[in-house]
């Protein structure tokens, strides 16, 4: 029964990877399509700017022309639909794995990869109801496809019972908030990458990346990234505190500079730096975007390199 469920889960993971890969291709095609459409969009914006300028300071009725909503092209609509489909398969895989193991599906690196990527996609999809972030699709589905692929190939372990050190309610709390923090950081970092590209194009670089003209400007990307990262930072703070409470119960101290603790702290400080950078003259913009990217790289480093190659108490990869 357990083996069978775990096998179904694994098949679902492979299917989800395939569908995510397909969605990634379509998101990328959409970006290249945008480059073709970019010229038309530029014209529209020029007209809007003219209208705004002629409005002056007193007229009531003349308001800046709303940017004409671009009807979602077929590629993008299909890519989003595929991402939803893959996510449902993905969730089924995570749930089957959890049922097979009789516990939360994030007790080793494979399961963590499975659940963390599910949350990243979930946050990405649900964020669409708040803001149109579909232009991040290629970044997010690409990241998740690779992460899940590495998880299955490099980190897969069979279902095994929890070791005593992990038998704690904090396994649920500590990891959920860590994963949520990771998901918000991932979206923020993706936006920061686009912000850098967008800035570069605005300064005359990247002549062929015309799709960048179809996404929001660098200032707006930065605002969106900031708002997502701030939420991620709150979750990350919870992660640190929940981890410390758990460590105090399991290891007899709340903080011991274990390698994983060190890197979680480093990530926290980097994003604290990001938040300060945004409020510091001369650091807003490109520099703070780099900090967001470095911070998220540290999150990935913390999960992969630190877990596998560094010696420490958080040795739960199951490898």
């Amino acid at each position: 029964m357990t083996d069978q469920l775990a096998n179904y889960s694994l098949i679902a993971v492979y299917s989800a990877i395939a569908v995510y890969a397909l969605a990634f291709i379509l998101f990328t095609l959409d970006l290249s399509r945008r480059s073709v459409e970019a010229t038309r969009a530029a014209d529209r914006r020029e007209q809007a700017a003219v209208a705004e300028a002629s409005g002056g300071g007193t007229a009531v009725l003349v308001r800046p022309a709303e940017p004409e909503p671009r009807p979602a092209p077929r590629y993008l609509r299909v890519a989003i639909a595929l991402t939803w489909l893959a996510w449902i398969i993905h969730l089924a895989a995570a749930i089957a794995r959890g049922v097979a193991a009789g516990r939360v599906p994030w007790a080793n690196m494979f399961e963590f990869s499975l659940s963390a990527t599910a949350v990243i996609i979930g946050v990405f999809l649900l964020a669409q109801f708040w803001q149109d972030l579909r232009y991040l699709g290629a970044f997010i589905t690409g990241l998740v496809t690779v992460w899940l692929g590495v998880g299955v190939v490099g980190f897969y372990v069979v279902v095994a019972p929890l070791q005593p050190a992990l038998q704690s309610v904090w396994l649920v709390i500590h990891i959920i908030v860590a994963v949520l923090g990771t998901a918000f950081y991932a979206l923020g970092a993706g936006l920061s990458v686009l912000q850098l590209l967008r800035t570069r194009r605005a300064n005359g670089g990247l002549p062929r990346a015309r799709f960048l003209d179809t996404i929001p400007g660098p200032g707006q990307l930065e605002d969106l990234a900031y708002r997502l990262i701030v939420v991620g930072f709150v979750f990350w703070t919870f992660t640190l505190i929940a981890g410390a409470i758990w460590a105090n119960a399991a290891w007899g101290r709340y903080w011991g500079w274990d390698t994983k603790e060190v890197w979680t702290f480093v990530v926290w400080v980097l994003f604290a730096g990001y938040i300060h950078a945004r409020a510091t003259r001369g650091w807003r913009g490109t520099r703070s975007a780099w900090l967001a990217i470095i911070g998220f790289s540290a999150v990935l480093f913390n999960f992969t390199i630190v877990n596998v190659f560094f010696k420490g108490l958080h040795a739960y990869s199951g490898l």
Partner: protein
Amino acid sequence: MSRSRSEPTLSDPARPSDHFDQVEDGASPAGPSLGPLGWARWIWRQLTSMRTALVLLLLLALGAVPGSLFPQRSADPNGVVQYFRNRPDIAPVMDALQLFDVYSSVWFSAIYLLLFVSLIGCIIPRIRHHLKAMRTRPPRTPARLERLDHHLVEQFVVPADADRSEELSRIIGVAEQQLRGSLYRVQRYDGRGAWSVSAERGYLRETGNLVFHAALVGVLVSVLAASGFTYTGQRVVVEGTTFVNTLSDYSSFNPGRFVDTAALQPYSLTLDSFDVTYEMPGSPGAGQAGNFAAHVTIREPGQTTERSETVRVNGPVSFGGERIYLLGNGYAPTITVRDAEGAVVYQESQPFLPQDSMMTSLGIIKVPDGLPEQVGLVGFFYPTRGVLDTGASASVYPALVNPIVTFNVFAGSLGIDDGTPRSVYTLDTSGMTQLTGADTGVAGIELRPGESAELPNGWGTVTFEDISDNDAASEPVRRFASLQIQRDSGAPWVLLFAALATAGLITGLLVPRRRIWVKAIATDPYPGGLLARIEYAGLARGEDPQLASVVQRIRDDHLAALATELPNDAAKENTP
């Protein structure tokens, strides 16, 4: 984002001058002409600037990294010893750079202390300013609201027969009521041909911000203050034996500077039994422990009642301010050594330290007296012995299925006669001769429970006792538990400040702080009355992505309220 660089009333004097919201004053004092006081002020301003805080934060992140690359004495002392052994050439250099004690190093301490000085220097003026701001009314309405990024204008016609000033005052009064109802703090500024309400909300943002930073200081102070009174001790307790809470009974003890080690809480703790379950062979995770439970009895002097407790992983036992943790476990085979005449010269249940997850364990037996020479036995214990592909023995399952102990015998000097303290878990063989195993040509000793073997040279015998023979034990080998006993009175304070910091963080980041102005100005004559202009403007103080829509909503609500309240008095005019 709405920022105005030129309105002097809009910037916040208590903030560092390079804060994004601050007006660049261009007159930063610098230069060699400054006196000592001027220099001190200049250095202080540099230290409390945003840029310095940011650089110190990034340095802190960078400075923490080496602690994960090099073994730390605090977390992994054996790793440090090993590093010295493997890299004797560079290890002293690394040590001189304090790379094995990163988190107590001079340079790491310098970074975080400077950071906290900068933080305190930054928040104290801001706390003072904020306390004042919370008591003062919202500031005077700026003369030119149209310079703000979020600015909307509507026009009204005030009928000729109406009292102009009463009418406009009433219109602003409606906005004032609405803003107050939305929890804004409001202040009317009427006069000189303009009627306006100035409103501000979100003081909680700055409060949260300040609470967050102050709570971080609280966390640091709690950690530093408590470290002097914290102690941690480790002790290995074999089943059936008792540990007394005195310094001499610990195998290692790390007291803070102010701990009175002579006055530890008096109690004794007996390990009655140690339970462990392992996953069955052949199942996934075979040999992995399912649960550990150390059943202990705690007795206090002068009290007849005993407390029976179970210490588990993740489940420490609290006892009078101390917490008892289960950190590890293993086997303690009972070994008896007899001399040639059969007299017992050694009998102990000696803990053997596990070397791998299948509990292949290493232990040392030291017999200083009673035999012709001092004898040391280097033993391996295998709860379930198997043979690896390499031909070496190893335990293949952690429970007692096929328990075997093997010994190699060394004779000579144990190195303890001069009083040098020696670990009971290592044998210094430099002054000893190996008598069995390796190149000696004599096979090592191998024993199952209940078996005995001759020592070399006819010196006597060694026996692996089967304790299930003669006492109530159900297993042939005793187990031990490795317990950690600690007191950390600072931990609740750290938790309290961490919780405060989180609460402050959430309000400081997510509560928007903004100023809103609604202003009415009578302008030109108009057919049938006078044209009045109503302006709505908003200013974000800190991040406020919703501001544009908030200004719009305030405008819409205001217009809707006017439409119901003033259907005839003032007709809204959309076409100027």
